[in-house]
């Protein structure tokens, strides 16, 4: 079988028709694919207007000194024109190596990295563990699955309130710790414990997604592979290491990448858990939001510059991640 078959269209790729000229090809492409473009047009339009244009505009803002005092705004019937000016890369220079750059940027940056690494690791490990347990023939599996997915089913802003009640100074968790004669940290005031609490809550919220994705991945692994491994005398650990993990590879690579992106940009949990009262526990996203909307005057330019820095960190990470994944496989996801 040397005839390549296009997986999706089923067309045989061969030299059956002579290659037409460029113009005819273009016309041909259009005639053949016009409905494909028509199907994509709505997304392209919405994303173009609501994501790409704001991105370009945000990039422009990050090169200015715009804040809420010099932007165009309407007070009553009076319209005040924008008076901010173009200042080039000054915002970036100020953020990265200005006077108090460590307090304003680098401390948040380091904490964001720690936060992302810790959360994604915990999500993945716990999610995988639970998925392995749920992938067995056990009684009540459906019930377990339904309950375990609950943190994902209930909206974040509801569950975070539940956690706030529990983490309050004399709330349930501290009462329980007190009863056990353990130290009772100030979960919502002390920086270290704020960070600890944030990771804990985010782990609780994020595990179900990983669990379900990995459970799906486990079910798609061919059972005969396990049988073959068993016949060859592989131990449980070896079967896990050489059958399960490689079988999960494509699911894992996708969910880990999504997990990193989502955790890195996780806004709701930290914002709702501390409500802007904990600048030291702010990751870069919530910190940028604070600069742009949580203080007076609102500093749109710095906020946008932070946003661009965040984006570039993610883009660089994704590029390396893809290269690392592709080291022995031609493509991750086309």
């Amino acid at each position: 079988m040397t005839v390549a078959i296009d997986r999706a269209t089923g067309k045989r790729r061969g030299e059956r028709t002579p290659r037409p000229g460029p113009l005819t090809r273009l016309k041909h492409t259009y005639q053949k694919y016009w409905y494909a473009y028509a199907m994509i047009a709505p997304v392209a339009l919405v994303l173009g207007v609501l994501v790409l244009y704001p991105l370009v505009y945000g990039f422009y803002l990050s090169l200015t000194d715009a804040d809420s005092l010099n932007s165009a705004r309407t007070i009553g019937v009076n319209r005040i024109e924008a008076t901010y000016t173009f200042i080039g890369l000054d915002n970036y220079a100020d953020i990265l190596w200005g006077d108090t750059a460590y307090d304003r940027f680098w401390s948040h940056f380091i904490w964001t990295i720690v936060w992302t690494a810790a959360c994604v690791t915990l999500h993945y490990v716990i999610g995988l563990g639970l998925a392995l347990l749920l992938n067995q023939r056990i009684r009540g599996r459906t019930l377990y699955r339904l309950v375990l997915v609950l943190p994902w089913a209930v909206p974040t802003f509801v569950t975070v309130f539940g956690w706030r009640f529990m983490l309050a100074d004399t709330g349930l968790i501290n009462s329980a710790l007190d009863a056990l004669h353990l130290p009772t940290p100030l979960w919502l005031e002390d920086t270290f414990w704020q960070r600890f609490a944030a990771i804990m809550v985010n782990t609780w919220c994020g595990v179900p997604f990983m669990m379900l994705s990995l459970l799906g991945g486990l079910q798609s692994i061919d059972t005969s592979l396990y049988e073959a491994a068993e016949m060859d005398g592989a131990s449980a650990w070896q079967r896990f290491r050489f059958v399960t993990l490689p079988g999960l590879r494509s699911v894992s690579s996708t969910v880990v990448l999504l997990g990193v992106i989502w955790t890195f940009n996780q806004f709701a949990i930290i914002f709702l858990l501390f409500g802007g009262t904990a600048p030291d526990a702010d990751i870069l996203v919530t910190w940028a939001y604070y600069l742009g909307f949580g203080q007076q005057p609102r500093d749109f330019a710095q906020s946008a510059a932070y946003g661009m820095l965040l984006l570039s960190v993610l883009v660089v990470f994704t590029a390396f991640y893809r290269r690392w994944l592709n080291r022995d496989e031609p493509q991750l996801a086309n």
Partner: protein
Amino acid sequence: MSTTTRLTSSAADQAPSTAAPRKARRRGEQSPGARLATHGVLVVASLIALFPVAWLVFLSLGPDKDDYLHPGRIFGKMTLDNYVFVLQETRFFDWLTSTLVVSLGTTVIGVLVAATTGYAVSRMRFPGYKKFMWVLLMTQMFPIAVLIVPMYQILSELQLIDSYLGLVLVYCSTAVPYCAWLLKGYFDTIPFEIDEAGRVDGLTPFGTFARLILPLAKPGLAVAAFYSFITAFGEVAFASTFMLSDTKYTFAVGLQSFVSEHDAQRQYMAATAVLVAVPVSAFFYLVQKNLVTGLTAGGTKG
């Protein structure tokens, strides 16, 4: 479907192979000890998953504002008064209406658009489709901090600030990329012979899509719908920035305004939170049957 797939595939890797068993066990069957451990871990995990939610429900029954600090007192005086208050005295139903309008609008528009996109990318190798998928993934990376100011200005140019449509469009821009990826993976698993059969029988590309592929892709669509709904339902930052009049607040915003309005009266907050969790959990359990199958398809093909 998910139940049957799971039943047939068992993971033998959990079965302990140490200590040769006295009586022969079938593959995938466990020793009683291992089974007990499995159940133990799952029960503990379930309790952890369940507890914060259950605790919120419990606290919502306490009538006084400091009851959350003294949960023991609630037992003696459980009451549904908080719920009565929230339903009668607050803007609960306004919030419910706007949340449902926005969430269902996002679900319908989002899934429709994501389905056509996913189908186009899955079936037709038109020039630029690979780049297009990466652009979709890239949009997931844009932090709200950089988008929210320009978005606000564009929406106000379009007269869409404080309107449901504006918020729905914004949510679509966050939900559609992931859904399109997921559905593309799902469509990839549907044999393309089905498309060809449809075309041979004289259906247009759109007809093939609507009448043959969509019905087959129901599990995938369910996951996409669920994801869109949850995204729209739980989103905080955009909703609190773009919705100005308090009759149009979604729950995520309304709950916050509620906190500052009744400063320390957390019992109402808890009651509202419970009432909010009800519709979304109901929706969730409607689609959960298809969840695993749909996610797999999305995950494996990425």
